[in-house]
């Protein structure tokens, strides 16, 4: 729920307009110079890769602030890491690496439970499995790529999430885009949340089914859309739909909001639609024992038909999984192209997930898992409440480790990013096209490996930079003592 004040909207539009005018001027001069200089002969007869306006945004707006994105790092993405400094000789058009690095606080990586760097329980086991199974199986799952580790992890994931069976894939993006065409095709209807991730959009488009969108996180609008669609049937032929699938995410990565899962499940049950829950950011990060949004909101996993998740965020590995009933998983193993044609997940990565899940469940014999879960919850809640007290506009619900801070103006994006980097805090700023044009934001991801001192330093820096740029859109509360309620879990 973003409350965009009128003056801010006007100034943002004005800034974009100015940038657009200047971009067009520079394009005009470039075309002029192009006429004067002769074109290269070898490209004659070929259409250019990008015509005129298609990459206007990239050339004239994005390239100016290119140094805020794609910053290389030289160490593990832990709570403190080394950011490589880059320099440019031609006004940000090309960036070159230098040898210098600076140690910064990491507020941008998806490292929710702190498994990103070498871990005392996981890393020795990962190295062991690397020596035993080598880095890759060079084969697909159905030919010679299934190892004992894969079978073990599938059972463990199914047990962790609370479903009957699970299937693994080597990449989270492919999980969505290769799975949705498998379970629905022409004659079916997909109703997806308006802010769903690009992988879901690609999968829905690739399936051939009709796609309709409902307003973000609004179960009443979902009900309206369902009623209308079931009553009307397929477009043009008016035949009844073969099946309807509703796709939602657990935590939306650009808003930090939790999905209103109980209401949505109730609506879907009433109208006999199937539900597909994408828990990329929420598995392992929320819930009392890390089991995700279902546990946090009190929903029975048996009510959700298909649960999908990735291992990149909370488990510090790579890959994705689908958990559902035995029949669905059996069918997927038979016909899903990502299972039949793609290289199987790398065995050390599988071992990392197995060890991480064992730590979270406490099966490694220590209570580190429970400590990590408690810490990430406290860190998120503390950080969010402090930011709100300072007067920033922060989105997202309580308990969610993702918190976007609204910036709006295009000039504030590089300003925030560069100023924070100078003070050794690394943040992520997001603009169009990942978010709507007027709603640019900085996104903070809290980790269980951040200590209370780290968070306090981050708050100081962000507050100073916020004052400097002017992003404190709301009135600040009078500052209380920050060390009140210091937790002894460290």
């Amino acid at each position, binding site marked *: 729920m973003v409350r965009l004040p009128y003056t801010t909207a006007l100034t943002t539009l004005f800034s974009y307009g100015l940038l657009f005018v200047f971009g067009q001027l520079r394009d005009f001069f470039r075309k002029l110079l192009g006429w004067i200089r002769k074109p290269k002969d070898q490209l004659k007869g070929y259409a250019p890769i990008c015509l005129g306006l298609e990459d206007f945004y990239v050339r004239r707006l994005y390239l100016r602030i290119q140094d805020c994105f794609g910053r290389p790092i030289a160490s*593990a993405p832990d709570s403190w890491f080394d950011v490589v400094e880059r320099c440019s000789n031609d006004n940000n058009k090309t960036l070159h690496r230098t040898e210098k690095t600076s140690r910064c606080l990491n507020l*941008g990586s998806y490292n929710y439970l702190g498994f990103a760097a070498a871990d005392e329980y996981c890393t020795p086991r990962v190295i062991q499995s690397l020596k035993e199974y080598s880095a890759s199986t060079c084969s697909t799952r159905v*030919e010679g790529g299934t190892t004992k580790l894969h079978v073990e992890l599938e059972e463990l994931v199914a047990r962790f999430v609370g479903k009957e069976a699970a299937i693994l894939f080597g990449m989270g993006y492919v999980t969505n885009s290769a799975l949705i065409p498998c379970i629905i095709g022409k004659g079916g209807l997909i109703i997806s949340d308006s802010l769903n991730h690009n992988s879901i959009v690609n999968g829905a488009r690739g399936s051939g089914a009709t796609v309709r969108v409902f307003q973000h996180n609004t179960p009443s609008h979902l009900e309206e859309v369902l009623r209308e669609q079931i009553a009307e049937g397929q477009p043009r032929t008016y035949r009844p739909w073969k099946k309807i699938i509703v796709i939602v995410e657990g935590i939306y990565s650009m808003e930090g909001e939790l999905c209103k899962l109980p209401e949505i499940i109730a609506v879907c049950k009433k109208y006999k639609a199937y539900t597909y829950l994408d828990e990329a950011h929420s598995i392992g990060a929320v819930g009392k024992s890390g089991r995700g949004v279902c546990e946090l909101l009190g929903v029975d996993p048996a009510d959700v038909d298909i649960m999908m998740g990735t291992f990149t965020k909370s488990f510090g590995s790579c890959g994705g999984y689908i958990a559902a009933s035995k029949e669905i998983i059996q069918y997927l193993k038979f016909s899903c192209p990502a299972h039949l044609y793609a*290289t199987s997940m790398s065995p050390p990565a599988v071992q990392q997930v197995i060890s991480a899940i064992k730590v979270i469940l406490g099966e490694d014999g220590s209570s580190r898992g429970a400590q990590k879960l408690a810490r990430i919850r406290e860190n998120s809640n503390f950080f969010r409440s402090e930011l709100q007290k300072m007067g920033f506009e922060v989105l997202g619900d309580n308990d969610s480790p993702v918190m976007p801070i609204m910036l709006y103006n295009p000039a504030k994006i590089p300003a925030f990013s560069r100023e924070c980097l100078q003070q050794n805090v690394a943040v992520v700023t997001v603009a169009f096209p990942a978010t709507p044009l007027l709603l640019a934001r900085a996104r903070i991801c809290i980790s269980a490996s951040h200590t209370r001192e780290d968070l306090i330093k981050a708050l100081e820096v962000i507050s100073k930079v916020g004052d400097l740029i002017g992003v404190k859109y709301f009135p600040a509360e009078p500052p209380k003592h920050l060390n009140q309620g210091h937790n002894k879990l460290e």
Partner: protein
Amino acid sequence: MALAMVNVTASVLDWVSSYFDAPTRAVVFGVPIDGHLVVEALLVVVILFQLTRKSYKPPKKPLTEKEIDELCDDWVPEPLTPQITEDMTYEPPTLESAAGPHAIVNGKEVVNFASANYLGLVGNEKITDSCVGALEKYGVGSCGPRGFYGTIDVHLDCEQKIAKFLGTPDSILYSYGISTIFSVIPAFCKKGDIIVADEGVHWAVQNGLYLSRSTVVYFKHNDMKSLENKLEEVTRRSKHPEKVRRYIVVEAIYQNSGQIAPLDEIVRLKEKYRFRIILDESHSFGVLGNSGRGLADHCGVPIEKIDIITAGMGNALATDGGFCTGSVRVVDHQRLSSSGYVFSASLPPYLVSAAIAAVDYLEENPSVLSKLRTNIATLFNELSDVPGLVLASHILSPIVFLKLKKSTGTGKTDIDLLDSIAKQALEEDSVLIATTKRSSLDKCKLPIGLRLFVSASHSESDLLKAAASLKRVAALLIS
């Protein structure tokens, strides 16, 4: 009767014309009102009157809430997945060791022909050491997409290394083998563009072609005559050849048949008709050519003539992920508009260091390529007289593809026969062979068969053992 009609008509006409030709009866506002003006004015009034009448539309009754409720109650959805049948319960063999030339399945040691481990790098000491170093330094995952602190210095090193090895200006890394090609194609081809593709391309390419929404024309598998005809047809039909982007999509070594694409012929056609080439070198990178640089090296074509080269690294380089290389413009464009690059986490650093170590190994030991070639030739020779099966792949291809000489009737019985051959070979002779599996979403119509992936680390006895086993089992099962 006719005369009476004529008389009546004539008198009516006279009457009408008398009104038309009536002399001016009145002068209103200086305009003389002739007779015909009155008739015309009446006609205009009648027309206007008709226009103002509403046309008859049957009344529209929107559905009431109660009717919608009834429809929703009546509607019964199909089950999410179809009924599970007998052939859907296939369980693949589970490995208990690394997927090298000899692997352990169900406690027994088998000769492994199901891993595309062409250079024998699975289990290589140097690569394992570099991976261990990377694991201790960077952990396992990279925890972020490339744009948000997921770019680690090893990624940049690897991109430069691959570009230097191939001789191109720049390259870009992807985090998964099959997502490379189906992210690259939609990044360059949009609605309205024209693509001419081989009909035997694998599913990932087909998915990329579908997602790009361009016009796709298929030509007969590896048939240059058919390609030329299609290019001719497409160029003739297109209206603005300078504004429309046109691509030819081929694979260097086709996964579905083991054929090798004749690149010099394709480049000649591309220059004649002004198309760009997208070449997928997943199975030929590190295999073909004197130094392993792929199909361009093998055919003696300068690498600048190929516009876009993609490859998955899960085969010869024994790691995971993929890369794409080409001119600077091509690579830069993908950094912001390729969905598999922008919206997905980057490749884990230990796999990247494995890739760097693998390319180093290939540069230092080019003799491994000649060993691979000898192995392929030996196996090809041995398998040329298997009863009931015929070799369908190219003589230089590391994927040795055997298809049935005569189909047993339906596709299903063919698959069952091949599966039983592979199963018996595994259980009785300890030789692990793969049959091609086709997904229901795959549109490729090429015949299925048995695939053997030859590796440089297979010994001669391994190859002879596999050939003997196949001959024996095929003689038993194929009547």
